């Protein structure tokens, strides 16, 4: 083949559509007059077309589960904290607050009730305050003589306090 290397590469760039419009026109007119260039272009095109069909049928020779298991293990090895759920621990402050907040609220309410209704009546009025053990954020006050019931809810719930949530997480 007598074609110089620069022309060979230009011909290939023409095939790969890497030339400007003006350069492509120039090569097209050159091809019309050069038999060797036409044959070389056909050879390059044949090779390209043969290659295009190569990867289509390639399949991974492992099962989905087996292939994934190694990836998963490696991810967990490198990022154990991200891959596993974090254990939730309660700090001592949050634990204490769970009891102190409702207890304080009960005391405050009782004081408020006593101030409002004054000392017990001579007839002996019946007052009752309850707090549920399974939900320390709730307590109830009953005044049977006056047919009044007051329910005190700690809201948001203790576990939803954003600051305690943050403190509870183990970094």
């Amino acid at each position: 083949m007598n074609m110089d290397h620069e022309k060979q590469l230009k011909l290939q760039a023409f095939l790969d559509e890497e030339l400007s419009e003006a350069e492509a026109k120039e090569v097209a007119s050159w091809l019309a007059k050069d038999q060797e260039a036409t044959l070389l272009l056909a050879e390059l095109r044949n090779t390209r077309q043969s290659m295009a069909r190569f990867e289509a049928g390639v399949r991974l020779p492992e099962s989905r589960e087996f292939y994934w298991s190694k990836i998963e293990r490696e991810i967990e090895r490198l990022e154990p904290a991200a891959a596993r759920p974090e254990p939730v621990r309660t700090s001592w402050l949050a634990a204490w607050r769970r009891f102190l907040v409702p207890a304080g609220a009960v005391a405050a309410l009782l004081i408020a009730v006593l101030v409002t209704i004054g000392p017990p009546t001579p007839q002996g009025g019946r007052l009752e305050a309850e707090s549920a053990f399974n939900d320390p954020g709730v307590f109830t006050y009953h005044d049977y003589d006056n047919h009044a019931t007051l329910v005190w809810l700690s809201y948001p719930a203790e576990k939803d306090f954003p600051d305690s949530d943050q403190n509870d997480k183990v970094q």
Partner: protein
Amino acid sequence: MEAFEELVARHRDKIYARAFSMMRNEEEAIDLSQEAWVKGWQRLVQFQGESSFGTWMTRIVINLCLDQLRKQKRQRTESIEAMDDETGGVERHMPPITINPTAGLERNELRQRIDKALGQLSYEHRTVLVLHEFEEMEYKEIAKTMNCSIGTVMSRLFYARRKMATLLNDLRKEK
């Protein structure tokens, strides 16, 4: 993690195929494709959706394969044939092959022959072919990926194609 597993299942053949085309070794291709998935997981936040997820992942596996091939190249002495390939070799002067050496072949037969021919190319030529023909990269993208000039990419691609044509023609004659 389950969503990521689904992505792996969806794209695993393509990622493996790309690694296999470059490495020419099943075991290495599996290992490198799995390593690519781990890197993909670690860099998932960097995926901006500028390309498809499959394309993004193939770029990761290509870079891993290139690193591996460079390491392997450093470990072995370059053959005279490979040096010829870099500077042109005999392919540059050979007359064009006038018939299509793969015409009429069934897919499996075609794959086997291309596979065999690819195995006889140097890694530089094979990589340029894979990036251009399979990954459909432009010359400048290949140059950036392979850290070389566009002129080098063009030369390597030309010799790789000519050598492939010769090898495929030889295989046709053998049959």
